[in-house]
């Protein structure tokens, strides 16, 4: 039972991170039907910025939690700037082009950003400081769920609640939903669609940066390549849940996290990724639109 709970919470933590990154994929897809393959790189850049800030802060002798918050905020700002620029440079000029063109542009940006970090930083794995302290009150349950897991869970849940409020309650959220349902009509009722698209990229990038900082301080190392696997997994989560659907992304992330965790724990950790992508294939065969996705017929 204890082992089960351990795997359960491990999967939940993992899954909530996947969900956080998957939200960026799914929101962008919902609005402009583009798989933003460079999204994983935004996550990686978030982690790198946090590492640099953490390094500087440690020199000035700040404590763990304050470093985490400061590094997180700066990483978010940086990632947002990257996400905004990415859309402006690589996707906006291709608006109206066939769908394949921005997709290729996205893959290009992904490779470009990886190599940029590779050259500007280092090809090696860098150690990332453990910024999340061990809380005393977690001591009795530490063998099931540790402090880092708790912090990750709380952060992701709070982030998701804020995102839901933003989309459901504010006028910006309303404009985003309208743009998603009918972009041209949204324009005609006066929504500045370009600005809404920029904002979607900014929000998605902020979520990716939060994910990046949390994962980096949880796993303890970063590298220019971490965005690739995280991106592919989060993309899988988004497709699992039904791409374009926000609750779907969260559900897909959790399903993926648990599948990985239980498969690794009960069967073999060597085949972790096999289970992940096997699950993807299975769901796509049984429910091509994803768990919560609506299959809609292409209108002619």
């Amino acid at each position, binding site marked *: 039972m204890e082992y089960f709970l351990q795997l359960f919470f491990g999967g939940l933590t993992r899954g909530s991170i996947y969900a956080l990154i998957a939200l960026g994929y799914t929101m962008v897809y919902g609005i402009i039907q583009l798989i933003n393959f460079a999204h994983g790189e935004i996550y990686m850049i978030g982690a790198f910025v946090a590492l640099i800030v953490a390094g500087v802060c440690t020199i000035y002798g700040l404590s763990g939690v304050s470093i985490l918050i400061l590094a997180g905020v700066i990483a978010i700002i940086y990632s947002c700037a990257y996400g905004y620029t990415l859309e402006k440079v690589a996707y906006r000029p291709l608006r109206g082009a066939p769908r394949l063109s921005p997709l290729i542009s996205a893959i290009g940006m992904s490779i470009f950003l990886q190599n940029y970090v590779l050259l500007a930083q280092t090809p090696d794995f860098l150690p990332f400081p453990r910024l999340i302290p061990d809380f005393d009150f977690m001591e009795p349950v530490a063998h099931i769920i540790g402090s880092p897991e708790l912090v990750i869970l709380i952060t992701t849940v709070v982030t998701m609640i804020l995102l839901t409020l*933003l989309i459901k309650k*504010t*006028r*910006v959220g*309303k*404009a985003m*939903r*309208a743009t998603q*349902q*009918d972009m*041209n*009509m*949204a*324009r*005609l*009722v*006066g*929504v*500045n*669609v370009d*600005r809404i698209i920029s*904002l979607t990229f900014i929000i998605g990038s902020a979520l990716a940066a939060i994910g990046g900082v949390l994962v980096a301080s949880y796993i303890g190392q970063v590298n220019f390549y971490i965005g690739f696997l995280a991106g592919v997994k989060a993309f899988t989560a988004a497709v699992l849940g039904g791409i374009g659907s926000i609750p779907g992304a969260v559900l897909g992330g959790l399903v993926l996290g648990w599948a990985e965790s239980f498969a690794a724990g009960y069967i073999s950790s060597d085949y972790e990724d096999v289970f992940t992508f096997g699950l993807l294939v299975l769901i796509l065969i049984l429910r091509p639109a994803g768990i919560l996705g609506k299959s809609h017929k292409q209108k002619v």
Partner: protein
Amino acid sequence: MAENKHKLLEVKGLTMDFGGLRAVDSVTLEVYEGDIAALIGPNGAGKTTFFNCITGIYNPSKGDILLHPKGLKTRRLNGLKPNKVTEMGLARTFQNIRLFPDMTVLENVMIGRHCRTNSGIFKAIIRSKSVRDEEQQIVESSYHLLEKVGLADFANEFSKNLPYGAQRRLEIARAMATDPFLLLLDEPAAGMNPQETSDLEQLICKISAEEQIAILLIEHDMKLVMNISDPIYVMEYGKKIAEGSPEEIKDNPKVVEAYLGEETE
């Protein structure tokens, strides 16, 4: 036409080419304040293309689209983005219904009002006091609009669940929410039964009279057109072939020919 009325929309020699196809061929048209103008013509005459040019969906190949808002300087609409055109005070509805299906009736209307408010994105995210007050105002004025079109009872329904005629009225309410002085209606009565059409007729007259919104409509229902519109413009094969009062149009041989074909000996 009365000379003292203020001219709101002036379209001069509008031409729209799609490759080798000339969908709209130097059409000239004017809408004055208080008008309920109609644009009629057989299917494929280029009426909707004409609307699309005016509202910024297409960038016309030739010609001028001039908007003369009362008390403001004249604006040329050619090549403006649709959201800018809407900001200038020109709203439209579509031939096929294009509501936001997964939003409530109220939200559909509210979204139209947002272009008339000045809070930026970040203020809206933080939700300061001024934003909340403004939001409250938007809710109230949106309710008011829904009452006007008779949909206040459905405010919290999803718009996709409304009956057809009600969806059409909601489209008009949403267009009015952007606070236009000129409203373009693209076949508002398409697919309606006679009762719904007559309700619509009253609604259009009410909007024109009470809100001081000029109206330009495309319609195939000749009874509706003849009852409420003056002047009427007729298009065929991209060209304007006639304009005038309903009586003049009815007796115009070119119009009869366009609709019924040439008389044979």
